[in-house]
Structures are given as C-alpha cells and as structure tokens.
C-alpha cells in the first residue's frame, strides 16, 4: 500500500514539476496562432495549384481568414465546399465566373512550317533557340511545357499542338505563365467559340507558314449577331469576351482557314488536318 502511495506521489510530484517548467516556457515563448487557418486549410482541396493567386492552399486559407479574399476564389472547390468554408467562418462565399484556359493556336505539325530542332524538349528553352523553330513566330511551339504544368492533366499534346480539354480544365491558370508565346488565356467557361490564332502578322505572311491562321477576312465579324461580338486588331480577329458570340457562329461564319473553332470540338479533334 505504502508502495502505491509513494509511487503515485512521486509521479504526481514529477509531473507537477515538469508541468511547471512547460508552463513557464510556454508563457515565456508564447506564439499566437489562429486555429481557424488550419481548419480552413483542411477544408480546401490541397492540390496547391495556385489558381487562387496565393502560394498554396495554406496561404489561401490564411488570406480567407484574414478577410483578404473569398472562398470562391478557389478554382478547384465546388460551390458546396466553398459554402461550407463560408459557413464555418460566418462569411459569404462570394461569386466568381468560371473560367477555362484556351491555347490560341491551331497550328499543329500537319498545317505549319517547322525546322528540325535539336535540343532541350521544353517550350521555354526552345524559344531561346531560333524562336522555337516554328515558321510562325507567334504559334504554339509544341514542347508541352503547359501540359506538364497542368495539375489536372487537362492539356493534351496533339501533333505538336497543345489542346485544352474544357471539361477537365478548372481555370487555375498554372499553364498561362509557362507559355513563352503567351498563347494561353483564361476565358469565360460559357464561351465555346474562339479564334485559334495569335499572330498579328499580315495574312500573306501567316498563310505562308500556317494553313489555319486567321487572315482577318472578317467573315466571322459580319456573320456575328452584332458587330461588337468580335474585335479586329490589325490582322487578327478575336472574341470580345465581354460580349461573346454564341456557338453557332462557327457554322454561320464558314471561316476559310478554320481558325474559328469551338473549344469542345477542337478538343475532340474535329479540326485535324483542316485545309490540307
């Protein structure tokens, strides 16, 4: 009996002593943390894609908790998830239009002029040598840097051309910075029709190196429901994304070079081998 009492007393005494030491240290070196940040981080998808504009999910969580941004800025989370975070913090989830990436080039190997290239198989390295060895100085050089950067495997390399699959793309924008030709733009997900060309060169110069370049014939501009749906900038036509055209424009415009495409059909390979 005495043994048990002594043991209990001894252990309790030791425990009390150590607790005192820990308590003192904790007081001396106190660090304030907000436990909500950790909780919110756990509620986020954790892919660290950076699509929200912050360094990663933890950084984003911190920004939400501090009120610098809203949960909806996470491009990966569904509305259910963002609502849950908003509920937890007692804030609104916010609203955001869904965007997807578009690679503004239709120049696969079959329809463009290219030189044989020998070197690092990476777009940003390739453009340092002979501008990417493609006839067109503005087109997709096709070494898959964007496809490798995509955390969701939404970009497929097809015949030397990066093609975005709209149904897989969540619009995080990780690919945008990897393109040395700045071909990738984030566009409203609701818009399906795009001009797959980014070359400001004259039509004659473009057609010499690419069979699917926009030659600024303006057929699409005229065919559109109203003139402002397409914008003309020099020798290049583009969607006016604040007043976008609807999908039947591709049917109506009969683009002679098939530069005007539907993103969904482009991804399905409907325009391959055009004007060959």
């Amino acid at each position: 009996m005495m043994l048990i009492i002594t043991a209990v007393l001894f252990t309790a005494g030791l425990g009390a002593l150590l607790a005192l030491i820990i308590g003192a240290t904790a007081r001396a070196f106190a660090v304030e943390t907000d436990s909500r940040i950790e909780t919110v981080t756990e509620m986020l998808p954790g892919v660290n894609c950076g699509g929200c504009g912050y360094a990663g999910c933890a950084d984003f969580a911190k920004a939400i908790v501090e009120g610098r941004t809203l949960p909806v800025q996470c491009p990966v989370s569904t509305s259910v998830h963002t609502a849950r975070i908003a509920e937890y913090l007692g804030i609104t989830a916010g609203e955001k239009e869904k965007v997807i990436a578009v690679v503004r080039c239709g120049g696969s190997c079959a329809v463009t002029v290219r030189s044989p290239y020998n070197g690092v198989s990476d777009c940003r390295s390739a453009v340092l040598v002979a501008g990417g060895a493609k006839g067109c100085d503005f087109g997709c050089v096709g070494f898959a840097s964007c496809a490798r950067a995509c955390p969701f495997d939404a970009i497929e390399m097809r015949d030397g051309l990066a093609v975005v699959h709209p149904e897989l793309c969540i619009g995080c924008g990780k690919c945008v910075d990897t393109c040395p030709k700045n071909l990738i733009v984030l566009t409203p997900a609701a818009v399906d029709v795009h001009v797959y060309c980014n070359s400001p060169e004259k039509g004659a110069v473009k057609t010499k190196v690419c069979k699917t370049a926009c030659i600024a014939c303006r057929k699409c501009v005229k065919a559109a429901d109203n003139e402002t749906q397409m914008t003309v900038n020099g020798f290049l036509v583009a969607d006016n994304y604040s007043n976008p055209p609807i999908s039947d424009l591709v049917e109506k415009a009969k683009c002679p070079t098939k530069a005007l495409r539907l993103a969904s059909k482009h991804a399905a390979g409907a325009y391959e081998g055009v004007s060959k």
Partner: protein
Amino acid sequence: MSDKPRKFKGGVHPEDSKALSASKPVQTAPLLGKYTVIVHQNIGAPPEIVVKKGDLVKKGQLLAKATGFVSVPLHAPTSGTVTAIEKCPGPACVSVPAIEITADGQDEWGSPFEPIADWQNADPAVLKQRVVDAGIVGMGGAGFPSHVKLSPTKPVDTLILNGAECEPYLTADHRLMLEQTEDVLLGAAILARILGLETAVIGVEANKPDAISKLNAFASNYNVTVQTLAVNYPQGAEKQLIYALTGREVPIGGLPMDVGCVVQNVASAVAVADAVIKGHPSIERITTVTGEPVVNPGNWRFRIGTPISKAIELAGGVKVQPAKLLLGGPMMGFAQNSLDVTVMKNTSGILLIPVEQVSQYTSEPCIRCGRCVEACPMDILPATISQAVENERFDWAEQLNVAACIECGSCSYVCPSHRPLNQHFKRAKAEILAAKRKQQKK
C-alpha cells in the same frame, strides 16, 4: 611583357579548321541589285527609321537614327531607292523589321563625314562623336555599340584590341590583320587617343604567326604592343582576354572598365579608322564564308544587307547538303533556318556544317565526370546547374552563380553525355531575369 603566350584558366581546344579559308585573301563582293538592311543591328535600343518607302538614298546616307545612348545609327550600303520597309528573317530565326534598298547601280556616296586627317591633334570628343555617328558596333559578334565602351565612368588605363579570333573556322579578323595591318594599328591609336591613353595592346592567338609578325613590324609606329595569346577557346571572350593580358578579373556582372580596361575588336578598330580618316560610316565588313560543304571557302567584304544566299553563291555553293547554317563561329554562332537572313555589322562568319560535325544533343544522364568543371573558364559547375535547370530549380541555379556563365559552350563541347548544358544556362538566365522583373513589378 614577356613573349610567352598568355592564357586563362579552363577552356577547350577544338579543331580550329581555319585552314579552309585562312590563306584566301579578302575579295570585295560585287554590287547587288537589292539589299535588305536589318534595322536593329546592335545590343541596346533599336534605331528609329528616318526614311520611307520610295525615298532615294545615297550610299552612306542615314537610314535610321540612334534612339538613346546605347543605340547606333544605320546607314545605306549603296545608293538606290527604298523599296520596302517590312519584316524579314532575322538572325534569331524570328522576323525583324528591315529596310529594302534597290540599288541604282551608281553606288554613289552621299555626303559622307568630313575626314579628320589630323587625328593626332583632334579633340578626343570630336573623334568620339565620329564613332557615334558612324554607327560602329563590336564587330566580333556581340554588336555592342563601340562608343559606349569609349565613355567609361571609371578610370581606364588599358586599351585592349581583340585579335584572338578563337572561334574555329573563322578567319575574317586574321585576314584583316594581315591585309590591313596599318589600318588596325591606326584604329588602335585613334581609340587610345579617344580614351586619353598613350598606348594600346593587341592580343592575337599564336595560331596566326603571319599576322603577329606583320603587326609587330608596324606596331612601334603606332605605340601599340602586340601580345601573343595561347591557342585556347574562349581566348577571345572579353573577361578571359583581360585576364590573360593583365591578370585582372572582371567581376561577375561587371564591365571591363571596372578593372580599368576597354576591349575593342580589331574589325571595329578598322571601322573607326575608316570613319575618322575617310569619313565612311560602318556599312561593310569582312565575313568568312566557310565550312566543309562549301565549294570555295573564303573571306569576302560584304555590305550590310547582303542576303546570305548571295554570300553562299559567291563561295560557289555547297557540295553536299549541310546539316546546319550558322551566323558566327561554331562555338557561339546562331543556327539559321532561312537563307534570306542578311549580313549585319556583327556577322563574322557564315558557316555551313556537315552532318558528321554537328553536335547532336541527346540528354543522356550526367555521369558526373567533371570535364565541364575543368573546361569552364568561369569556374562554375555546369553539370550541377544543368541538373538544377532540368528540375526547374532556378533559385538553386542562381545560387550556383549561373549568372557568371558567358555561354562560351566549352562545357557542352566536352560533355561525353552530349547534354545541352549551354541551352540550360540560357534558360536559367532568362527565368531568373523574368522572376526579377516580376518581383520589381510587385
């Protein structure tokens, strides 16, 4: 100074292949019907075009004026009509603006600059202004405006003329030093006067003994010393040349003037002499057209704007299809995919490389043999940096001092795994620069 050839640390010894064209005297290329003059021929700001389509121009007339301190004017290579101002293939395989001049066949000088015969007593500022007006750039390859180097903001005590021509195949500077020996030395003396120096030193690689002895014969008349350099690539790189001749190390990211030196190419020196004594702007240069596939390799005096297809035609065309067409030498030159590129002020060579000579980059894994470390004249670790770049770790590459790399290509030359080291460094530098710009924006 001793007569022992001067050298630097590291470097490689590629087959020099200069025999193809070293004994061929410089020929003047015949007048062509059309010249396409690329507007931006210098490092720094592009000049601003001052002519328009349909204008009649005389030889030497201003086509584009400088747009700032680090910029040079451009002059017409012959008399004729401006028939187009549009894009043409540039030396980096990307289209660049160019001025097309259709020659009238008269080749008539406009009003050239007033010759300054009495340069010994002329005001250095006037001489320097002449260098600015004549549009002279570093003709060894870089195309850096010469007058910028002549305006040092730090005290300078040594003027170095670069006659190393360490690139294999190229013989343009060699022929120049041999055939226009006095012009080279005269240019050196004028440059020295501009800098307020008494003397200049000219460094020549030991594989050009005829040029060295000829320079030596006249050098004392111009107060110039001739120094033999060891045959070692990249002996002609500015920092290596300065180290070999003076033992001074140019700091990373620094300029030769940081160690009291100014380096000018021998061809630029001749251009300076021409501008001062004859009043001619920089509109022509000596270029070596060479390579095993070429029928008649040799050295020609081309006007700027000459398409390289014409240059190759002059050399008799090719015997077999070459694998590569380069502007410049095989170690640092730029591969071309068009024959419509035109000769620029810094085109030291037009080189056609046969299939068997071409380095095929295969990116086999690094076996860490350390040959690149031994070869690197800048004492960095090419193998490690390349691995960092392969894994997109640019911060690591920066820590490893990739910024010091002069892209001489010695590492890629010796690599037994055929790794594209040099391209990796280019990428790393570009990414580091982009990251810095992005940070500055923020």
